[in-house]
């Protein structure tokens, strides 16, 4: 099962992620119960693909700023209000905040799942096969190839600053940090020029076609299972008047 999920071509997995997220987002805010079905479906894939729990937990921390935004909604939303512990809160705001958080969490967990079963190089091939403009994918390829290098340069600058006794504790440190960011830009830009020249020296003559492998009909069907089941959950719930 794990091998099946990992071996699906990336274009199938990206399409499955987008389809699943669209099915989740399509549910109206008052039909919160429908998301239990989505959660079960996603959990099955997470278990089948053996997504590490650490990756899932790390993903949750990304959401924090928008949790604050969601918690602010019950106080300002319009419509009928309810008393909760003596505070007047809008019903629509409460339902909306819950719906937002559940949808955001499901989408995030699905994206973590994709990321943990797809290598970046496969993802780029998958995007090319999904007809994303070649130039955009190429920029993404260069970015992924050099992001570690740029990050390492930043860490070396940090070591050099620390060796000179620099401590960043307040906005007084901003000018020094900003000069480092400026230096980081120069190094990244000049490296880009060198990469371009090296590429020409090797006889570069334009972007190559999509790599990776085309997906078979069977693979597309396997990939469609998750979004189709999720869409079915959304549709049956809505048609049954569950959340209407």
């Amino acid at each position, binding site marked *: 099962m794990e091998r099946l999920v990992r071996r699906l071509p990336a274009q199938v997995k990206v399409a499955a992620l987008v389809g699943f997220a669209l099915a989740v987002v399509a549910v109206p805010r008052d039909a919160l119960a429908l998301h239990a079905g989505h959660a079960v479906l996603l959990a099955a894939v997470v278990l089948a693909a053996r997504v590490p729990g650490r990756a899932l937990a790390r993903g949750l921390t990304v959401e924090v700023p928008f949790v604050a935004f969601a918690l602010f909604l019950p106080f300002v939303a319009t419509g009928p209000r309810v008393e909760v512990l003596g505070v007047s809160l809008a019903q629509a705001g409460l339902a909306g905040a819950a719906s937002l958080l559940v949808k955001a969490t499901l989408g995030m967990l699905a994206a973590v799942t994709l990321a943990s079963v797809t290598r970046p190089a496969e993802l780029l091939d998958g995007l090319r096969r999904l007809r994303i403009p070649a130039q*955009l994918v190429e920029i993404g390829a260069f970015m992924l190839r050099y992001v570690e290098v740029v990050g390492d340069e930043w860490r070396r600058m940090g070591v050099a600053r620390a060796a000179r006794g620099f401590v960043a504790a307040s906005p007084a440190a901003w000018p020094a940090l900003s000069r480092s960011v400026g230096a980081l830009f120069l190094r990244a830009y000049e490296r880009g020029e060198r990469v371009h020249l090296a590429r020409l020296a090797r006889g570069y003559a334009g972007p190559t076609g999509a790599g990776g492998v085309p997906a078979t009909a069977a693979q597309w069907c396997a990939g469609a299972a998750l979004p189709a089941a999720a869409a079915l959950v959304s549709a049956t719930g809505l048609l049954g008047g569950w959340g209407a």
Partner: protein
Amino acid sequence: MHVPDGFLSLPASLATGVVAAAGVGLALRGARRELDERTSPLAGLVAAFVFAAQMLNFPVAAGTSGHLLGGALAAVLVGPWTATLCLTVVLAVQALLFADGGVTALGTNIVLMGLVGVWVGWGAFVAVRRVLPQRPASAAPAASVGGLLSVPAAAAVFALLFGVAGTVPVPLDVVVGAMVGVHVLIGLGEAVITGLVVSAVVAVRPDLVYGARPLLQRPAVPSERVPA
């Protein structure tokens, strides 16, 4: 800071996706003028720089810290079309490999940061550059104003989208007011850092700063590049 899935209704998410696709399509044409045939490697490295810069913490006070959004900074350094492409790629990679920002909200995030953030920042930069003395050092204060306005502008557009097409009925004025209020503070930090970074780059290689090129009296470094 990226909008996750479920904040905007499905039709609104699809609509922002169409707007984002159109904007990125234009940027793919425009960026060729800014960077010629070096586009892909340079834009890729600049995207890596933006990605790294967004993760750098700037200490504020009492252990809290903020980070750069980088739309205005990228626009001033490499030109707005290339900046739109770089931000788009950064946002797509963050959504697909780091689960930062929802995949259905990718269009919304590109509109907010890659289009509004970049182009409001660039527009403010150009307007201020026009009234300042015409020398390279003027690029820093102009970039600062770009950074200051780009952040609350993106927040205001998000609040408007949420008010019109969000999943919760909210009074538009309250949400716009609160979002812009909070983000003016963030914009102040963005302004200071953007200005400082641009001034650091202008001091060393003014010819590399796209927004400072019209301010150069003559090419600071004679062009040695032979057409390939």
